[in-house]
């Protein structure tokens, strides 16, 4: 028996391959162009935009790293993202567990309230949030990004985790209950290991969203040394917009590691990012 993939390609399939290949290559080219340009001098970017660099100028990266304080930006982004993602996924998993496995006063109301966050555009609360963070003395600290970032991730995380809990029968949890385990033990030793795959998906989705968050970071952080990568990059571009090589180097440093990581974890990343729209 030979499967479909063993047969020689038909002419139609070659056309499909060629057309798809050209479009995908054209779409991917700006990314390649960015990486190649980051090794050039400004003159060269202007004179020969398509060619390879005559001399691979690694010092562009050193210069961009130092001038942009990229190390600090990376560190802030990592702290904000790791903390906010941990908070949102743990809180949301506990809530989804309660919404599907437990009964308590206000269960339906609380869930409906959480759903409000699914359709609400973040700009709607940006201004009051600014004054609340100021009253809490959190403005211009990383907490001003961590707490709202986690809070804004809750709706989608609870919604999807709840769906996952509902797809699993509560047999194990009920059996443990009959054996005399308390709710807390059931949650940690049975439910969490059971929904771990969904938690992983949500970790990836929330990581990408919070890592890339721009508007709150722009409004709630003033000090340069507390900025995260997206704001840092926009500001860096603002200061050095005519120094093409430098900006390309900064772009490459801040995106290439993420892109490489993506190509290794592709399957999980795609599952995470499209979880919103998949049933």
């Amino acid at each position, binding site marked *: 028996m030979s499967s479909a*993939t063993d047969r020689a390609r038909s002419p139609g399939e070659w056309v499909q391959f060629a057309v798809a290949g050209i479009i995908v290559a054209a779409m991917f080219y700006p990314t390649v162009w960015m990486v190649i340009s980051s090794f050039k001098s400004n003159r060269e970017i202007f004179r020969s935009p398509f060619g390879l660099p005559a001399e691979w100028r690694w010092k562009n990266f050193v210069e961009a790293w130092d001038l942009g304080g990229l190390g600090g930006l990376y560190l802030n982004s990592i702290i904000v993202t790791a903390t906010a993602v941990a908070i949102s996924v743990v809180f949301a998993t506990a809530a989804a567990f309660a*919404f599907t496995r437990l009964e*308590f006063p206000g269960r339906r109301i609380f869930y409906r309230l959480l759903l409000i966050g699914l359709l609400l555009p973040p700009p709607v609360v940006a201004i009051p949030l600014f004054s609340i963070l100021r009253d809490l003395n959190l403005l211009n600290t990383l907490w001003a990004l961590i707490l709202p970032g986690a809070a804004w991730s809750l709706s989608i995380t609870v919604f999807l985790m709840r769906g996952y809990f509902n797809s699993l029968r509560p047999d194990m949890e009920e059996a443990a209950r009959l054996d005399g385990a308390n709710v807390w033990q059931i949650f940690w030793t049975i439910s969490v290991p059971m929904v771990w795959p969904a938690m992983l998906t949500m970790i990836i989705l929330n990581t990408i969203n919070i890592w890339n968050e721009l508007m709150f970071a722009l409004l709630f952080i003033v000090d340069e040394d507390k900025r995260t990568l997206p704001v840092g990059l926009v500001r860096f571009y603002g200061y050095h917009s005519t120094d093409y090589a430098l900006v390309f180097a900064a772009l490459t440093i801040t995106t290439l590691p993420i892109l490489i990581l993506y190509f290794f974890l592709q399957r999980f990343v795609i599952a995470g990012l499209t979880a919103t729209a998949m049933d």
Partner: protein
Amino acid sequence: MKDKTPEDRLQPISTGAANLVFVAPAMLLFGLFVLFPLLSAVYFAFTAWNGFSEPVWVGLANFRRAFADTVHLASYWHVTLYILGTLFFEVSFGLLMAVLLNSDRFGFSFMRGMFFSPMILSMSAAGVLWAFVLDYRTGLLNSVFDALGLDFLVQPWLSQSSTALLAIMFVSGWKFAGFYMIIFFAAIRRIPRNLYEAATLDGAGPVRQFFDVTLPLLRQNMMVAVLIAVTGGFAGFDLFFTLTNGGPFNSTEVPATWIIKQAFDQNQLGYGTALTVVLAVVVTIISLIYLHISERANVIRY
């Protein structure tokens, strides 16, 4: 509520107010940083407030001003055009690519991965990169047109009113088409093969098969995709901020960029909040109408 979902009928593992402890952390965080700001937005919208002094009640003045603010009104026209653009450059293009990249042959899985890759870049990185691609003097796009001898296509894409919005739609398509491609690709994979085999036996070519088999069966996914594109479009800020920040001459001003400018550049937090309330109402009404329509649309089974 009349229709209970099956899971509601299952016996809960435990009952009682003590179980609130599982939802309390999430509800506290959500209440403090989403619900409370949302409610205070409704109050601030009726005040004059510069962010430092006490807010002063001004009644409907902010809303009257909002409906007379020509840039504000134009921002809804721009965002409507932008959403229509994303339906073309993101949703339709994504669907086309889902069909084109649907193959088990060698290389296709890799191409799907490459096509999806802009999705994981931050909007600001994508924005800065495309500011260079679209640059008048040194930009990649103009260099390509130059090299091909298409001089008339060499344009200052982002710095003239006639092309800036179109350029942003295009960048948005580059960034998000992969998302819709994967959604449609997953849906296409669930369509039973025998439907296509039957269509082939009936003499339908690839194009007929797309319109007669694939498209009707993707209806539900299309509904979801359009809802995401529309609600996401109204919230659009990052790309506009990085590429044009509303310029040139407010030609790419969308509600989010105008709100941020009014509130934080002009220190009119009361007025800015009124604009956010208008935005929230518009998004809610459109979502409700849309959900109503899509619930009534019959779901095709196979």
